């Protein structure tokens, strides 16, 4: 698989990165050489193999259950009334580069 400059621009777009021209060149070269090496995965026949999204799929789970009940240990009771203790607003805002004390402030979202 050969990565083109168009691919690099497209991917940078998806990743929300504004690359400089030099960076575009560097990543074009790097992506190609790394993906070239990664291509060896195609030497393996994985048609009958299930993907492993997470290791913890197996342990801690209640094997006598099926579906999401297997992972009961990872969930908590639904809270219908009242709030759980959470980060106070001022603390949540304290690292904000831009704020009005109530909200995070950012440049305009919609161009008119």
């Amino acid at each position, binding site marked *: *698989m050969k990565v083109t400059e168009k691919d690099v621009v497209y991917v940078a777009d998806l990743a929300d990165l*504004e690359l400089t021209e030099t960076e575009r060149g560097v990543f074009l070269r790097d992506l190609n050489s790394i993906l070239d*090496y990664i291509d060896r995965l195609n030497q*393996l026949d994985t048609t009958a193999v299930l993907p492993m999204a997470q290791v913890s799929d197996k342990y801690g789970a209640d094997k006598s259950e099926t579906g999401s009940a297997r992972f009961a240990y990872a969930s908590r009771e639904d809270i219908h009334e009242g709030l759980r203790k959470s980060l106070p607003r001022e603390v949540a805002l304290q690292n904000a580069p831009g704020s009005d004390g109530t909200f*995070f402030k950012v440049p305009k979202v919609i161009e008119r």
Partner: protein
Amino acid sequence: MDLNTLTINAVRSAVQERKTTATSLAEAFYSKIKNEDPQIGAYLILSKERAFAKAAEIDALAAKGQKLPPLGGVPVGVKDVMVTRDVRTTAGSKILGNYIPPYDCTAVARMEVAGAVVLGKLNCDEFAMGSSNENSAWHPVHNPRDRSRVPGGSSGGSAAAVAADMAVVTLGSDTGGSIRQPASFCGVVGLMPTYGRVSRYGLIAFASSLDRIGPLTKTVKDAATVLRTIAGRDPMDATSAEVPVPDYVAELEKPVRGLKLGVAKEYFGEGLDAEVRNSVEAAIQKLAQLGCEIIPVSLPHTQYAIPTYYIVATAEASSNLARFDGVRYGDRARDARTLSEMYRRTRDQGFGTEVKRRIMLGTYALSAGYYDAYYLKAQKVRTLLARDFEDAFRQVDAIVTPTSPTVAFKLGEKVDDPLSMYLADIFTVTADLAGLPGISVPCGETREKLPIGLQILGKHFDEATILRIAHSYELERGIKN
């Protein structure tokens, strides 16, 4: 009594018996840091107020003759990817250059409840991405054993601090080898627990299905002590396992006679440095003399581990790092006219080259049209790699390998060749992908006095066995405990 070379029990006893104070210890370590660290670069920030407050608390307990908690007075360093309330945390990146976390990482909190004195935050590769600590946005770290060389990475600061007596123990993180490889390069012990053994709450995420927190220490017993302190279920991390925590320290003294150790031929092939090979083979011989049975095993898919890792880890990282956009915390590009421009410039200016490279790779692997060919494929190969270990562990109790194919390389040697840097992880990534625990212990030196590491891999949640083997080996080598 040289305060800077003490291990956990020695510190605790000395403070309990009033031979010294936690405050004097903290002062001794800060003094050492002041003298040595300008040449090493292990620390990014010192948390003196917090450290001395904790030390005073411990000293008050000792003065009243009360029993100290297990890490009472022990000076520790924390890798800068773990958040510490009110102490600047940067993950080694400019994008978090001014970030002051409002909460503590669970592992750090547990250490402090146990009496640990947090000296400061340790340097690391940016967002834990790297194998040499040269990707830190701030400054590189120099290996205390040879300052012209790298300490390894990404927990380079954590390994260097222990090696240079600038902390008794440190916490590091491991995603592809980042605890074990620097431990090996710096000549200290590095333990990576099973995935889910230690809570990831407060660990700035790199790859959520791979990341682990673990200790770097001078001795195996210290590693066991720290693990006992930080391990265990945490309701704040749904991936932390509901598995009881054994007394890892008590388990250490059990004999190793009769244990079956697997030696996988795939870890002893081409590319392995001759001096490393000789040292590791000698270590295996020593373990055989202690009564372990050495059994040849095969992990046939080992050569596919690096490509699998660099798809899985980068894909997960591209998702995890999307949150750094200048909105809620961290740096923000000042000249942006629209929200979109703000996101893009903030990220391009705030992230270093290696981080951007991995985000690009991960995004590509997940993008429409390539998801099946790359990400899904890698997840399937991950199953094959895990199966290799399952099969081997039916015959053996642990697997011994070199930690790294080489010893510490020179600063600047691999910065221009990312692929060559990635291949340095070849013996460590496999355990990360399979979720297994692993420990690296020093097993020798090259002619140039560079440390060599022996890696012991274990079954899921069987840290007790690998610690036991490592401890016996350490005793046999005559390392003081």
